[in-house]
């Protein structure tokens, strides 16, 4: 499944890029599995993993949510607006 991944703030610093197109294996059907996959891809994210949220097509989603082809998945570090 092909998805577009966006990285912001501290997560972008670790990934070294702000966006990439990824082919996810069949073993990554959900948001929770995506986070695990992401941490394997960027081990430096591991200490932050529990504080990262995922936005799927511009909506916050939780672990059990299913991913779909051509999703835009944003890796959202703790927000600090205001």
């Amino acid at each position, binding site marked *: 499944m092909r998805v577009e991944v966006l990285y912001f703030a*501290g997560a972008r610093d670790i990934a070294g890029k702000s966006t990439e197109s990824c082919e996810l294996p069949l073993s990554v059907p959900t948001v929770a599995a995506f986070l695990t996959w992401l941490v394997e891809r960027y081990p430096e994210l591991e200490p932050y993993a529990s504080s990262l949220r995922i936005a799927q097509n511009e909506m916050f989603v939780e672990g059990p949510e299913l991913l779909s082809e051509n999703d835009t998945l944003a890796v959202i570090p703790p927000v600090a607006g205001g």
Partner: protein
Amino acid sequence: MKRVSAVRTEALSLDEVVAAVSRPEAGAVTSFSGLVRNHADGRAVTLLEYEAYPSMAEKEMERILEAIEDEIPEARLAVLHRIGKLRVGELAVVCAASAPHREQAFEACRQCIDRIKATVPIWKREHGPEGPYWVGWHDARCAHGASGHHAHGSGAGHAPSESGHHHAMSSNDLRLPPLSGMAVGVLTVSDSRSPSTDASGRVAREALTRAGATIVAFHLVRDEPADIASWVAEHAHSGQLRALVITGGTGIAERDRTIEALEPLFSRTLDGFGEAFRRSSFDQVGPRAMLSRAKAGVIGSCLVFALPGSPRAVELALTELVVPVLPHAVALLQPSSASPNSELIHAG
């Protein structure tokens, strides 16, 4: 009238948001201005760099304004957030609320800035003598990294930016409040109250905020089971809330129908909560404790507590029962922590 809610790179004007909400029927207009200050926890700040996920940030801001205007129907809101490099004293965010009366306007404005800080995907990088620093990022590692880093999507998942303002907290700081960063909701059920007279809802919000939780949804509904059920179902299943506290409608009068509204929604009930609550309540009010049907259960992955409408009962239930158990209970409900031993550990 189209709402003013946007992320901008240009300088902001408070006048713009105030003008956007001003209207003949609104006798009160409140506003909030967030400015770049010259220090953060003892460190000098010379420049703040705001970054956003702009398209989502604007949608999220719109969702927040819609939700608040839904909860406080008399209120109208406008908000602008700036991104890019800002100097000390420049406006980073402005919001304004108008309503017929000041209570609603103050409440709406406060809800607006609190929720914007809690969930809108905007980040800031401080620049000072010690170099650039993403606010909240280091705390994210410290506060949550040690406690099982596979707890993805846990309630601790988005520390509110307040924690970013306190990076004096060290990695093993035990003073972190118990519900730090947890997203929760509060619902008041009452036929007679308005947002300004909703004492138990206020006590619930204050007790949860004091414990470190972030109130991301708040609403006041009549004692109508269908209205109660639809709001609870929508928010409990949204995936945003770890816990929902409901106050009111748990007695035995004809109009007390909160429990009837919730029962069909519960996937499981926590009978122990009602038992513990009535036991504690007995110490305060004696046998009258029996007349409360306070109840808790699980809807989706959200813990829902139905408490009486008395401020004193809400304070008791939250500080003595709910807050102490919530972090562990929330962790047990996360899919990633579903281990065969979880109940054994829980049962001790």
